[in-house]
């Protein structure tokens, strides 16, 4: 009993030290919010198209029968990181055959149209979310956010923030490759 008591302070130090070490881990993002959407069906939403861009709007029903993984990107013309991310997403659509769906979050349609006309439109469909209600359905905390949805409409991955830089691109590409591999194995 006495021996156990002697070891107690050491034990406490190890436990507390363990937590501190975990807190110092540079990989850990204390602001990260675990998404409740992962492995869940895509939320209910139905958004009208962006007038003048020439691609249809986006609704939940457009995601449930795609038959292959698609990437859903929430963007806005007023969001500066979105501009940086745009080039990367365009490249992924062009080179990697990514199917990209857009949710234009709380944007003025006029601004969004000009933004896309300037930079090019990599999106297959664009839903216009004027009041941000679809954004809440997706549980986003800001723009940009990027989701991977499998062929039957199940959300499998979420990336918060711009897909810019090797690390972010790597994360999204790896996740997409995994989803594709699983889809291939499943069918």
């Amino acid at each position, binding site marked *: 009993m006495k021996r156990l008591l002697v070891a107690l302070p050491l034990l406490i130090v190890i436990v507390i030290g363990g937590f501190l070490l975990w807190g110092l881990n540079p990989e850990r993002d204390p*602001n990260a*919010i*675990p*998404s*409740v959407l992962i492995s869940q069906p895509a*939320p209910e939403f139905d958004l009208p198209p962006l007038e003048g861009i020439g691609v249809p709007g986006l609704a939940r029903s457009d995601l449930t029968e795609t038959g292959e993984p698609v990437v859903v990107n929430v963007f806005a013309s007023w969001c500066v990181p979105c501009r940086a991310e745009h080039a990367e997403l365009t490249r992924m659509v062009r080179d990697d055959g990514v199917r990209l769906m857009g949710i234009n979050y*709380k944007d003025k349609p006029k601004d969004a149209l000009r933004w896309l006309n300037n930079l090019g439109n990599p999106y297959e469909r664009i839903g216009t979310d004027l*009041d*941000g*209600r679809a*954004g*809440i*359905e*997706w*549980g*986003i*905390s*800001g723009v940009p956010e990027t989701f991977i949805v499998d062929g039957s409409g199940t959300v499998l991955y979420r990336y918060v923030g711009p897909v810019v830089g090797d690390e972010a691109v790597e994360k999204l590409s790896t996740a997409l490759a995994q989803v594709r591999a699983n889809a291939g194995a499943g069918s």
Partner: protein
Amino acid sequence: MTMRSLAAYLFVLLLAFPAFAVEPDEILEDPVLEARARDLSKQLRCVVCQNQDIDSSNAGVARDLRILVRERLVAGDTDEQVLDFVVARYGDYVLFRPPWKPTTYALWIAPFLVLAIGATAAGAVLLRARSKSGPFGLSVQEEAEFADLKKHLEQER
């Protein structure tokens, strides 16, 4: 300071009421529902400016959620249904008061457990101190051991 400038000074002070994040166009006409909305908003975390509730946050998403909470209340939801609605989209994370369920048992029980361990340890130490007696503060058993040692020493001499 003249009377007039003093009055002006006081008037300016009166203008300095605290700034509220809740904007006038959000406020419901029904004061009962509005009070419930304010109460619920204080229990919900703003997902952008964490550690701030949506009631006091100026972030866009916080405003959207405040409006959403009010819409649900007007639609006739109970407080619980409103919270469930938001949790379904943002997870338990948005609640300032974590729910009582298997994944949070440790969170809720740990403080009481630590307190119990501490109290037990403190009690044990105090009890032992009290049971000590004799001129040197030795326990009965230690006293006996001491007497034994003393006897041995005398025999060896």
